[in-house]
C-alpha cells in the first residue's frame, strides 16, 4: 500500500489538527451524526401493539421488580428508579398509538459530559452506562439530561442511578437487548445506528401514508441511539420535538474552553496591577509629608 499524494495530504491534515487541537478533535467527529458505528434500537410506533412485553423483559434482565399487571395503559407514565422502560398509550389523530420511553443513549450525552467522576460513560458500542464505584450521587446527570433519563434511588442508603443501559452486559456477549430480542411485533429493531437509519428511511419511503416523514432521534440532541418512527407527529406522543439539534454538551464547551485562558490571563493581569500599585501608598505618604 503506497502513500499517494491525496493520502499524504490527508494524513498531514489530520496530524496537524490533532497536534493543534489535541484529544478533543479526534473524539469529536465520532459523535457526529452518521459517521458513527454506535449500535442503537429503532422503535416503530406503527408496529407496537402495546403488549408491554418489553417492560417485563427489561425488569427481568435487570433484576428489577416486575411491572404492575396490565391495567389500562396510561398516557404519561414515566420511567422510575424501579422501572427502566414504559409503554404509554396516546389518543392521537390516528387513534390509539403507543410510545416507548427509556434512556435515548445520545451520541454525545449530556449526562456523560456532566459527570465529574466519569461514572456515566458512553461505551464505544453505543450504550451509556453507569458505574457505581465512581458515582458520588450528585445527580448532576439528572439536571443535565434533556430526556430526564437517569433516575435516583431516593430511599436507599446506597442509592444507585437507574436507567436503560441497552442491556450492555448482553451486548458484550453478542446478544441483542432483551426488549428488542423479545418483541413479538418486531416493533423494536437492534442494529448499527447507520443501518437503522437506512431501514427507517426505507420504511418511510415505502409507506409514506403510514409514517410521518421524521425519524425522532436522527438529529434531536445531536442524535440519539434510540430512533423512533411514528404514524403521528411526535408531539402527539408526548415527546419534546423542540430539542436543539446540536448536542447538549456543546452548551458548556464555550465556558470550559475559556477556563485555560482565564487561568493564564487573569493572574498575569492581577500581577501587573499589583506591581503598578504597590508603591501607591508611599507616594501618598510623601505627598502628605510635602
Amino acid at each position: 500500500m503506497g502513500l499517494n499524494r491525496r493520502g499524504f495530504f490527508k494524513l498531514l491534515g489530520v496530524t496537524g489538527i490533532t497536534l493543534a487541537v489535541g484529544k478533543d478533535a479526534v473524539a469529536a467527529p465520532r459523535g457526529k451524526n452518521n459517521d458513527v458505528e454506535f449500535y442503537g434500537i429503532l422503535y416503530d410506533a406503527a408496529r407496537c401493539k402495546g403488549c408491554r412485553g418489553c417492560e417485563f423483559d427489561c425488569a427481568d434482565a435487570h433484576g428489577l421488580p416486575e411491572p404492575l399487571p396490565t391495567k389500562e395503559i396510561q398516557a404519561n407514565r414515566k420511567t422510575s428508579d424501579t422501572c427502566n422502560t414504559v409503554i404509554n398509550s396516546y389518543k392521537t389523530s390516528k387513534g390509539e398509538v403507543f410510545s416507548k420511553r427509556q434512556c435515548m443513549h445520545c451520541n454525545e450525552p449530556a449526562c456523560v459530559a456532566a459527570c465529574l467522576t466519569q461514572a456515566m460513560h458512553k461505551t464505544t458500542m453505543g450504550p451509556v452506562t453507569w458505574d457505581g464505584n465512581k458515582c458520588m450521587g450528585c445527580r448532576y446527570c439528572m439536571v443535565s439530561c434533556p430526556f430526564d433519563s437517569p433516575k435516583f434511588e431516593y430511599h436507599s442508603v446506597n442509592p444507585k442511578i437507574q436507567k436503560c443501559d441497552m442491556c450492555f452486559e448482553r451486548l458484550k456477549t453478542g446478544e441483542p437487548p432483551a426488549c428488542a430480542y423479545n418483541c413479538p411485533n418486531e416493533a423494536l429493531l437492534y442494529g448499527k445506528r447507520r443501518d437503522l437509519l437506512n431501514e427507517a428511511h426505507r420504511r418511510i419511503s415505502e409507506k409514506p401514508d403510514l409514517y410521518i416523514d421524521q425519524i425522532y432521534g436522527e438529529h434531536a440532541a445531536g442524535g440519539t441511539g434510540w430512533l423512533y418512527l411514528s404514524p403521528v407527529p411526535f408531539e402527539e406522543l408526548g415527546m419534546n420535538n423542540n430539542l436543539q439539534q446540536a448536542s447538549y454538551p456543546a452548551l458548556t464547551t464555550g465556558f470550559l474552553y475559556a477556563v485555560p485562558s482565564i487561568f493564564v490571563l487573569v493572574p498575569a493581569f492581577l500581577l501587573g496591577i499589583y506591581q503598578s500599585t504597590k508603591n501607591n501608598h508611599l507616594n501618598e505618604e510623601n505627598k502628605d509629608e510635602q
Partner: protein
Amino acid sequence: MSNNNQITLDRDGKTIWRFLVSELKPKGKFLTPFNIISIPIMLLGLILIVIRFWKGLGSITNLTQDIPWGLWIGFDVVTGVAFAGGAYVLTFMVYILNQRKYHSIVRVTVLNGFLAYVFYAGALLLDLGRPWNVINPIIGNSFGTSSVLFLVAWHFLLYMIAELIEFSPAVAEWLGAKRARKILSSMTIAAVIFGITLSTLHQSGLGALYLMAKDKIHPLWYSEFIPIMFFVSSIFAGLSMVIFEGSISHKVFSSQISEKNHHSQKNIVIGLSKICAGAMFAYFFLQMLVFIHGQNWDLLNTPMGYWWLLEMLGFVLLPMILFFYSYRSQNITMIKVASVITMLGIILNRLNVTVIGFRWDMAIRYVPTWMELVVTLAVIFTEIWIFRWVITRMPVLRDSPSWAHDNK
C-alpha cells in the same frame, strides 16, 4: 483576653495543647437569645442529618426524579457561595489595587468567606447520594474533565486552601507563632492572586452548571450568559454581605474593635456602596441586554414575567438607586437597607434559576420540606458559632498584637 494571645509558647507542645483546650471553652454569657434559638435548631438538624444518612435522601427531602436539586444546592451552595464573594472582591481591592482604607475589614471578610465555603460546600456532602465516593474527582482515574461540576469541585477545594493561607497569619498571631506568621504572611499575595482567579471561574461556574438544563429553566432566567450574570452579581452580593455583616459585628463584637476602626467604618461602607452601585448598574444593563436579545416580550405578561420584573425592578434597580443615592448623601442607614434588599434579591435570583424557575411548567412543584429548612438553618447557625468562636479568640476584628507589626 489580650494577655492570652501574648503567651509565649514553648516548643514542647504541651503548653500549646493546654492553651488550645482552654481556648475551646466558651467565653462570655451562655444564655444569649442567639444561643437559645440556635442550639435547639442545631440539635434538631443533627438528628435530621442522621436520619438522612440512615434512610436515604428521600426520607427528609422533597426531591423528585424531575427535580433532583433543591434547597440544599440552590440556597446553601449556589446562594451561599455568591455571598462569600466579598472575600475575593476585597482582597482584590486591598492587595491588588492597594486601597489601604479597606484593610481593617479584610480579615473578617476572608474568615467569613472561608467559613462559608467550608460549610456551604460541606452542605454539598449532605446532598450527595454516595458521599463515600466524593474523593473520586480529586484522586484516581475518574477525572470528568468535561464537567463544569468537576471544575467547580476543584475550585472549591483550591479556593478553601487559598483563603486559609490568606487567613493563616491571624491564626499564627493567636498561637504566638512568630516565625510561622512571617512565612505565612509572605504567601498572602500569591494566595490572593490565585484566589481571585479561582473565584472568577467558580462564581461563573456555578451558573455554567445550569447551561445544559436549557429546556428546564424558565427562558427569562436562562441564557448562555448565566455564567457572566452569576459572576457580576457575586461582586455586589459579596459586598452587600460585607456591609450587612459589618454592621452586625460592630454591634455584637464592639469591644473588639479599636476606636480608629470604628471611625473608619463609615468611610468604608460608603466606599463599598459606590462599588455596589457600579456593579449593579453593569448587572442590570447586562440583564436588559440579554432580555432584549432574547425577544421574550410576550413572556412578561405572565405570572413568571411579573415575578421576573419584581426581581429586576424591586431587587436590582431599586437597591442600585438606593446605593447610589445614599453614597451621594452619605446616608449609612440607607446603605444598610440597600444591602439587605440586595441580599434578598440575590437569594431570589439564585433560587429563581435553581429552584423556582427550574421546571416551572411542572404540575407538581418542588417545595422544600420543613426538615430541609431546619438542616439549612442548622448549617448557617453552626457557621455563625464557629465564626464567633474565631472572632473572640483570634485577632480578626481587633488589631494584631504589637510583635506582628514589628516583624513585617
